[in-house]
């Protein structure tokens, strides 16, 4: 049930990433990627989702030249990774899932050295590192060994390192894992701004609300295959109901009955409303007014993508059985 992804390409510009018929079987016989074909347009904020072992990290590994593919082709901004590896690699920045810098090196050296590997002279790399580390609130820690940084700081360091050569395509593999909410918010503000300035971003995350909030197109992988490739908008439009949590002014003794939507009481002053997606919210508020129930605040119960994601994975597994 895949739909055409939202197309951002202009003037027939090559896609930021084109993966065609990618297959990867490890030496021990494990098939990590059975068949993946996908295209990420320039300027996109693209979600690559899947359960553990779905093949996301393997695919990213292949794109970033960290894993040898079994077959298939990868093109980055029109440059084939096999025939023009230098051009292709120069366009990518990777924020990997695991911390993979030398923890005994000072923060600034880690960032500047990475620039050096892309041929950026020390002075230029230093200036860029200063800007990035200030933006990511790490400048004060620049002389510290990476060993002494907190988990959130280490994640931000990896972002700074990945951006030192100003890549046109940034791949974020679980960038906010283990990061507290405040830092996560500031990281997303930074990454959104980066995307708005033209950097294509591919995101894998287990925090599905992040994907829902930021990504325009989405691919869901399961067992090494693409099971969904569409726009976030179209995917979310597939939801039949939406659940809201309502905080009430007064405690509610009994839930009134209605056939217009489903009501659940969480505690005396909190209720959940499951509303058909095609019904107006006015129906719900009209009902509460009629029963003298005063609603003080309202929010979505959880991210909508999560429900769809679980549903799709279950469906895929059933089909395989």
């Amino acid at each position, binding site marked *: 049930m895949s739909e055409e992804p939202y197309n951002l390409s202009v003037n027939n510009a090559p896609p930021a990433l084109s993966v065609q018929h990618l297959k990867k079987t490890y030496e021990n016989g494990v098939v990590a990627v059975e068949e993946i074909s996908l295209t990420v347009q320039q300027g996109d904020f693209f979600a690559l989702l899947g359960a553990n072992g779905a093949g996301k990290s393997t695919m990213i590994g292949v794109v*970033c030249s960290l*894993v040898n593919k079994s077959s298939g082709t990868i093109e980055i901004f029109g440059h084939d990774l096999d025939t023009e590896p230098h051009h292709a690699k120069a366009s990518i920045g*990777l924020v*990997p899932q695991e911390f993979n810098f*030398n923890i005994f090196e000072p923060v600034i050296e880690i960032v500047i050295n990475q620039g*050096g*590997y*892309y*041929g950026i002279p020390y002075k230029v790399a230093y200036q860029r590192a200063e800007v990035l580390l200030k933006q990511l609130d790490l400048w004060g820690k620049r002389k510290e060994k990476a060993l002494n940084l907190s988990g959130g700081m280490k994640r931000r360091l990896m972002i700074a390192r990945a951006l030192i050569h100003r890549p046109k395509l940034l791949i974020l593999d679980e960038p906010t894992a283990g990061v507290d909410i405040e830092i996560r918010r500031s990281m997303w503000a930074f990454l959104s701004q980066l995307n708005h300035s033209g950097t294509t971003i591919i995101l894998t995350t287990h925090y599905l609300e992040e994907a829902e909030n930021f990504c325009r197109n989405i691919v869901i992988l399961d067992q090494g295959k693409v099971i969904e490739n569409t726009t976030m908008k179209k995917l979310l439009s597939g939801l039949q109901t939406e659940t809201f949590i309502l905080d009430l002014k007064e405690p509610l003794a009994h839930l009134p009955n209605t056939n217009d939507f489903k009501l659940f009481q969480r505690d005396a002053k909190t209720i959940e409303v499951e509303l058909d997606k095609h019904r107006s919210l006015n129906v719900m508020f009209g009902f509460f007014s009629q029963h003298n129930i005063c609603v003080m605040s309202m929010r979505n119960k959880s991210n909508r993508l999560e429900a769809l994601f679980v549903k799709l994975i279950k469906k895929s597994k059933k089909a395989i059985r």
Partner: protein
Amino acid sequence: MSGQEIWVAFKTLFMKELLRFSRIWIQTILPPAVTMGLYFVIFGHLIGKAIGEMDGFQYIDYIVPGLIMMSVITNAYSNVVSSFFSSKMHGHIQELMISPTPHFIILLGYVAGGVARGLGVGLVVTLVSLLFTEMNIQHPFITVGIVFLTAILFSIAGLINAIYAKTFDAMNIIPVFILTPLTYLGGVFYSVNLLSPFWQQVSLFNPVLYMVNGFRYGILGVSDINPLASFAVLLIFISILFSFAIYLLNKGIGLRE
């Protein structure tokens, strides 16, 4: 990458390696100096007096070139094997692998680091040796040429070892079971002329013999081996190992899954 960018990448990797072993000089520079100092005291000064002369030189004078070469070999090798292996184990080799840095630059960067440490330690050991003996270098160009090529050769060998090693134990197998015996049996402490004809012939299959004797010729002017043969052996081995290391890096063997 342009030539300028490639140069920057090489310089970055080399400086990183240089800083790495310089920062931990107590582990990398000092121990060989102490060990070789003990060799000079015990083998050269104390036991050497009893041995007398070898090839017309005081025993301590005779073993100095071999001991310097031994420290160059072991340090060039261990610098690259430990640095590259730990990069691989801790994942920061990925910083290089995702970058457009060509594979030959990755190889040259690590080798340059190994050569720097090998020669650095060799220089320190040379200074220590001057506490026990005088040194009049007979053929400076040959001396420098042999020690430089030897450091290159064993740095490349260290990188190949690191590529294949999957555990810290595997990293030490080659140095302990192959490199050390070859070095000790490579004429560091004796002239192969002291051996029976059969063992003399066997010794000719030991590449370290050519390096130690080439270096000894450069310093003392005496050698069991023709210095041209020393250069030839070094250049042949460097060519073979360099090509092999590039092949491994291109294929991603031991690096890419």
